[in-house]
């Protein structure tokens, strides 16, 4: 009996944690900036996207794949959503759950984009998707859609083991 209860409890907890797969922090650019400025051995793959952006959604699985395939490497994938802040519960969270996204997702909610786009990269026109790949020795900015192979190629060249 006791064993059964514990099992049930475990199952329920597991399910709850699945449902609440991920909390999404909402950040303005000031609070987000540190993610662009880490200075350590990790390589950061930061993808700017939104649930309504078709080319973004097409490439999101590749970022998930990078996240999974490099889990034993010093690499971190961060998905920066530019969804409208009032859509977080209606669109963003359901999307994360549906696609079982495991990389960290943050919502960058800072509508005055002209004030911060250049700080992400002067090369960025503001179009989505866009990706920053950086570590302490390298910084690349890409206003384009990626294939998995393209991502892998850049990462393999730059990652420190």
């Amino acid at each position, binding site marked *: 009996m006791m064993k059964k209860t514990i099992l049930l409890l475990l199952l329920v907890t597991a399910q709850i944690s699945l449902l609440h797969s991920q909390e999404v922090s909402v950040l303005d650019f000031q609070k987000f900036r540190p993610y662009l400025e880490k200075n350590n051995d990790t390589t950061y793959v930061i993808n700017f996207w939104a649930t*309504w952006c078709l080319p973004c959604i097409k490439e999101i699985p590749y970022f998930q794949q990078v996240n999974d395939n490099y889990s034993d490497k010093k690499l971190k994938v961060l998905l920066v959503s530019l969804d409208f802040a009032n859509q977080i519960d209606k669109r963003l969270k359901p999307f994360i759950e549906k696609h079982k996204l495991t990389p960290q997702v943050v919502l960058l909610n800072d*509508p005055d984009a002209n004030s911060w786009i250049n700080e992400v990269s002067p090369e960025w026109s503001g179009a989505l998707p866009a990706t920053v790949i950086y570590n302490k020795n390298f910084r690349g900015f890409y206003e384009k859609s990626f294939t998995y192979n393209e991502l892998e190629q850049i990462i393999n060249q730059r990652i420190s083991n």
Partner: protein
Amino acid sequence: MKKITLSTLFFFSLITLVIAQGYQVGDQAMDFKLKNVDDNFVSMSDYPDAKGFIVIFTCNHCPFSVAYEDRIIEIDLKYKELGYPVIAINPNDPAVSAGDGFDDMKKRAAEKEFTFPYLFDDGQKVFPVYGATRTPHVYLLNKKGEALKVAYIGAIDNNHQDAASVSEKYLEKAVNALLKGEKPAVEFTKAIGCTIKVASK
């Protein structure tokens, strides 16, 4: 002979470079002839009395474009009286951008009662010359004699999410400067937007 080939090559690569980068403020903009949602073709030369144009690359599907629809109507109503009408252009290839076909454009223009022409960049010949990369993307043009000079490139204002929270109306300020015969203080801004959809080759 070699010299000629090299300089020709250089010349052509220069041309591609210029085309790829699009217009900068101060450049002369080209006119276009594109089909409007009323099935008539529209060119800027059709407006001999205009002092300039507010050319906005925008579309149906993009939430940033949708968020700005009402503001674009307001800007058109305010500034066409003053000589700067809005001309909206959908640059997307409908084959790869659901909801951005010519019939969708007609429907949206009717629903929202657009007060301005909403043109279709059929064949995507215009937006690359201007250098538009996202929707919405504004090019404010000012007539100097026969020429149309680019006076401002960028965002409409500094809050796409909420018109009530806007603190900088970049586009309106730029037009106001032109109306006073001045150069806009801010000539270039950036904004988040949807990429212009092009079928991959």
